[in-house]
């Protein structure tokens, strides 16, 4: 069977060769899982014929002289008989399921039974065992494994890509920004390793890689559900950027986010990190039950925890025991129990909140608050001198708007109550009395200072005190009101052993996730890293490592990476460097007819990776080459230009926003305000999720609507205009020199003669058109960027804007090659 077909099936049927022992995990289990396990698997309620094909004992047991699987005897095994039966009542899978198992797979099952039907577990639940690195002359173990596989497939390495292309590839992969022409020149003769190290040291690395993590963390600046009000939680986003730049070891990165607050003497950063699980949605719609949506948030936390760290779909087990993987309904709620003790409860104010102050400010502000309270108290017990002039003031009939005050003032003097008089006199002292002026100024000043030093808040995880701990019950069929048996904290131990030294709380859960015994975390994380760098994961379904996911294409390589990752001390930057320094990565991305035929997705990596990056990166890149990009890091989210759609959010405010001013219009995309109900339109067009729930893998579509964005979205029109101005200012005096600069900025290479010719033809046509119509030229050159420099040649600028837009829409610009 040709490799593409095995790839396609996601099942390693392999050649039928009696001499080669059949591997249960890789060859047999996928067939059973695809076709049989839903009815003959772990789910007790859905189980048919009292048969489990996922359980060796049950599948092989004696059924009154009959055997479903009789090792060594395929012809006496009911499994084979049923698969080959022509009787619609007998045949498996039942006809109404519209599944048939191909003859080649049945033959494989027969051969496996003949070999004694050796059992095993699903591959990803087996412990990671460090495989030995093939000795084939490759120095980087990544290449050694790949070369072995390529040899089997009759493939071989492509040539190395030109240095300038590699510099751009590395810069985009590490920082999400293109290299400047200065950087490309400076690094032209540098060693590959040094280029990687150079870009890894830039803070832009954290900003770029945070975007991916924020998809996993379902980070947004709004609370979700219909009304979708704003939420202040950006300190978490900044924490992610900083943690990545610090290269916090991945195990610590997990522990901080899952349970930083439960660590002994947690740092401020560790508390902020727990906002990871406060990125769940909060329901503010009237008439809804806080408890229902608190439960929904906890369920989201369970599902997110397992999906992000362990590539495991827990959602199935919320309603019933998992049909394919060994996770029971009870185990689901045992995991739920870990996350069911946090104090948050779907409240509008998002409590509990943590307050963040710049260093020293907190104590100072507390002092001011004390002083302020004291000052206000003195106004209530004024010095006698302060009341001087009160009666005269009253007699003048001052204008008061406050209702009680006005009522007091309007009351005839003899009918005025004591309290009313006191109210008026207090007001006089606090706002009018000349004698109290100095004290008043001081008190007002304190108030201003207090307001100015207000903390930034962030919702955090905080466990309830012991007396208020919640009980956890199994929720029947996933209904939060239909409760079954009580359960306590626990994990699906089939996935990994629970060490009794772990505390039975979120911290223990976090330690379990990153424990040496957990076979999934390191594999899932390394697979994601691979996917990010090479375009497709070693396991294509990076979101699903369970038995319904794809099998790894290079299982040994994945295990080696997982083991190396843990051995390195969970050093993410080190592992990234390892991939980026590989021969595999350095290849030219040019393809050819043979590769397109045999390996169109480049999973054997016989050429360099090439794919379309995220919409966020495309916007950042356009801002960078045009010179508009702001270097400002961190802080409250910003609102770049976005079309007003004139639509409101159901039960909420407007879906539109006021564009930020100044450099905030041009910050990196990671700082763009993320609204769940109205995600930033151009990012969505390029497959960005709305961050309502965690998304492990984005699609990579290629649609005409994307062309509209990069051609017509004012954000991209503005960058074309800015690039045009830059080319005229910095690009020398000739069209050729300007086009050279454009290519250096956008593509990190020289244009060839043909490219120059095509673009100059367009340029002269455009110049002619804009010379003939000045008003049109003015629009093209200035809307929305704004007025040109005095004395600028507007038609020329307009024409260069059109040319710049073409360069910024080149396939080569939109792809990371």
């Amino acid at each position, binding site marked *: 069977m040709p490799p593409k077909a095995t790839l396609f099936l996601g099942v390693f049927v392999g050649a039928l060769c009696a001499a080669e022992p059949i591997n249960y995990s890789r060859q047999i289990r996928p067939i059973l899982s695809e076709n049989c396990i839903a009815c003959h698997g772990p789910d007790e309620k859905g189980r048919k014929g009292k048969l489990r094909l996922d359980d060796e004992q049950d599948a092989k047991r004696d059924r009154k002289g009959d055997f479903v699987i009789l090792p060594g005897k395929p012809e006496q095994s009911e499994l084979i008989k049923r698969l080959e039966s022509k009787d619609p009542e007998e045949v498996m899978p039942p006809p109404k399921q519209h599944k048939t198992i191909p003859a080649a797979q049945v033959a494989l099952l027969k051969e496996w039974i003949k070999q004694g039907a050796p059992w095993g577990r699903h591959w990803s639940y087996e412990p990671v065992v460090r495989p030995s690195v093939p000795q084939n002359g490759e120095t980087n173990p990544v290449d050694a494994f790949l070369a072995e596989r390529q040899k089997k497939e009759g493939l071989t390495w492509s040539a190395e890509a030109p240095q300038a292309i590699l510099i751009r590839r590395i810069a985009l992969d590490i920082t999400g920004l293109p290299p400047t022409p200065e950087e490309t020149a400076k690094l032209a003769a540098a060693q590959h390793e040094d280029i990687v190290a150079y870009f890894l040291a830039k803070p832009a690395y954290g900003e770029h890689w945070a975007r991916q993590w924020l998809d996993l963390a379902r980070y947004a600046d709004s609370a979700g559900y219909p009304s979708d009000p704003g939420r202040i939680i950006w300190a978490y986003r900044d924490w992610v950027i900083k943690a990545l730049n610090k290269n916090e070891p991945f195990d610590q990165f997990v522990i901080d986010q899952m349970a930083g607050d439960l660590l002994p003497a947690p740092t401020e950063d560790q508390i902020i990190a727990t906002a990871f699980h406060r990125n769940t949605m909060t329901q503010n719609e009237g008439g809804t039950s806080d408890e229902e949506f608190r439960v929904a948030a906890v369920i989201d936390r369970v599902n997110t925890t397992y999906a992000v760290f362990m590539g495991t779909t827990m959602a199935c087990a919320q309603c019933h025991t998992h049909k394919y993987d060994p996770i029971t309904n009870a185990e689901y709620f045992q995991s739920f129990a870990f996350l069911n003790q946090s104090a948050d409860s779907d409240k509008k104010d998002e409590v509990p909140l943590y307050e963040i102050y710049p260093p020293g400010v907190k104590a100072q502000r507390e002092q001011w608050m004390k002083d302020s309270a004291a000052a206000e108290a003195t106004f209530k017990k004024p010095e006698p001198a302060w009341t001087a002039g009160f009666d005269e003031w009253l007699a003048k009939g001052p204008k008061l708007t406050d209702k009680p005050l006005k009522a007091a003032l309007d009351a005839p003097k003899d009918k005025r109550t004591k309290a009313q008089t006191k109210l008026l006199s207090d007001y006089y002292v606090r706002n009018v009395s000349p004698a109290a002026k100095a004290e008043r100024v001081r008190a007002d000043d304190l108030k201003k200072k207090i307001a100015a030093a207000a903390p930034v808040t962030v919702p955090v995880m905080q466990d309830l005190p012991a007396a208020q701990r919640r009980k956890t019950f199994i929720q029947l069929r996933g209904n939060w009101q239909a409760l079954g048996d009580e359960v306590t904290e626990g994990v699906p131990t089939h996935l990994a052993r629970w060490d009794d030294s772990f505390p039975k709380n979120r911290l223990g859960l976090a330690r379990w996730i990153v424990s040496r015994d957990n076979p999934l975390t390191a594999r899932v994380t390394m697979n994601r890293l691979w996917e990010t760098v090479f375009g497709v994961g070693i396991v294509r379904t990076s979101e699903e490592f369970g038995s319904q996911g794809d099998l790894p294409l290079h299982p040994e390589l994945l295990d080696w990476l997982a083991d190396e990752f843990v051995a390195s001390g969970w050093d993410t930057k080190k592992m990234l460097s390892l991939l980026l320094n590989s021969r595999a990565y350095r290849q030219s991305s040019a393809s050819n007819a043979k590769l397109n035929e045999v390996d169109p997705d480049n999973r054997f990596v016989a050429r360099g990776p090439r794919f379309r990056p995220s919409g966020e990166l495309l916007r950042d890149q356009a801002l960078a080459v045009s010179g508009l990009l702001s270097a400002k890091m961190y802080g409250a989210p910003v609102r770049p230009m976005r079309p007003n759609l004139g639509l409101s959010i159901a039960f909420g405010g407007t879906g539109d926003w006021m564009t930020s001013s100044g450099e905030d219009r041009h910050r990196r995309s990671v700082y763009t305000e993320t609204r769940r109900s109205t995600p930033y339109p151009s990012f969505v067009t390029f*497959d960005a999720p709305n961050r309502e729930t965690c998304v492990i893998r984005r699609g990579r579509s290629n649609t005409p609507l994307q062309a509209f964005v990069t051609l017509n979205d004012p954000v991209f029109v503005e960058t074309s205009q800015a690039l045009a101005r830059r080319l005229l200012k910095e690009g020398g005096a000739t069209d050729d020199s300007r086009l050279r600069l454009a290519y250096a900025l956008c593509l990190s290479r020289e244009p060839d003669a043909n490219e120059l010719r095509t673009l100059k033809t367009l340029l002269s046509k455009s110049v002619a058109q804009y010379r003939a119509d000045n008003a049109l030229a003015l629009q093209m050159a200035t809307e929305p960027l704004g007025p040109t420099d005095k004395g600028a040649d507007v038609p020329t600028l307009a024409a260069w804007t059109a040319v710049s*837009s073409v360069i910024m829409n080149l396939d080569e610009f939109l792809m990371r090659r």
Partner: protein
Amino acid sequence: MLHPLREAQLSLQTRRTFLSSVGQFSLGAIALHAMQADAFGASSASDNPLAPRKPHFKAKAKRVIYLHMSGGPPNLDIFDHKPELVKRNAQDCPDSFLKGRTFAFTSGVPKLMGSPRTFKQYGQGGLWMSDAVPNFQKIADDVTLVKAMHTDQFNHAPAELLLFTGHARQGRPSMGSWATYGLGTENQDLPGFVTMISNGVQPSGGQGCWGSGFIPSVFQGVQCRSKGDPVLFANDPPGMTRDLRRATLDALKDLNQRQQDELGHAETVTRIAQYELAFRMQTSVPEVMDISKEKPATLEAYGAKPGESSFANNCLLARRLVEKGVRFVHLFDWGWDFHGTNPKEDIRGGLTAKMAATDKPVAALINDLKERGLLEDTLIVWGGEFGRTPFREGRTAKGDVLGRDHYPDCFTIMMAGGGVKGGFQFGETDEMGFAGVKDKVHVHDLQATILHLLGFDHERLTYRFQGRDYRLTDVHGHVVRDIIA
């Protein structure tokens, strides 16, 4: 069902691999034949995920116009006539209906509320309709009323998501996405799945109502607007002429072609094609969205006014879009949440006013399609995400405005064309409208039926994601054969 794009995604494989692999998956023989003939026929459009495709079996409907009234129209004041409820008006709601239940805005014991509206039977089928819908009355012979609809959700967002994606939370592909995923579309110069919104507020379920979830985003609904850019960013920037746009795209094509020659990537070919499609859409979309050249009589029939943003305009646009080959048009109209918190939400005057802007264009749309011979293979669905309670809403019970709370157990959906019977009512609720008693239809059944009318077995139109074959009907759904002509 194995989708060509899904194949392409799995491993941009060649035609030969595709055919051999289809054999290994167990597609029904007919469907397999249809797919081969269509996806790899003379058009050789196999790499275009939106190329028209044949369904599992012969379809009654080729396209759908779904008219969604966001908020939940009061079924008891429009279609579901309950004399017994009128008789027991203002009595305490019997405990048996309240036990163990939660309502969105009602607690304690509410008062029953008979409809203040006048009901009569219309058309050959004797369809019950109230005075709120004078124009629906006139098309009674063209429609089926499904009167014992029910859902699992009593809040807007989850109920809308359940109705349109088969699941109450975000993340699944919408009905229109499934339809275009299965069928492609007939006009490559227009989006295959279009949504439009009237009355200024998007539905509670948000963009998820027309999102593509985990299936490729080419299948998501493209939001079109009758004011401003008809499609986001479709208009050239100020200062760009059509002539120059063509010149820039020619230059771009030329340069991209060279990139393709150098690197040999199929995706570059696709990109070139998508820019060309974008260029064509820049003409075709504004053209189809411009209703100013419609006959005055047509505009009058719908109550449409060029340049406005209204439900009437959207109904007319829906006809123009399906006429041009768009597969699925989904309209969302805001303002159907008749709680009684203000006069607009009153089931008397408020409903009359809301319906005046609704039933006329809907009737006009059905008549218009009929006249053009399009009704027989265009399915029209009109309805909300749930019904409303037979009792007065608790919060507003002391005021002058009559409102009802959300109610998931009973509501009515109106369907027309596309192989559905005319002059027919299906299903019954009990004498006070608390529960379906005969021929109940769950929202998953409605989905199964819509897919069936489009030629699909809803259990076989699937997409593999995170290790599971997902479908619109989740793990439920039965085709309602009785309403099919």
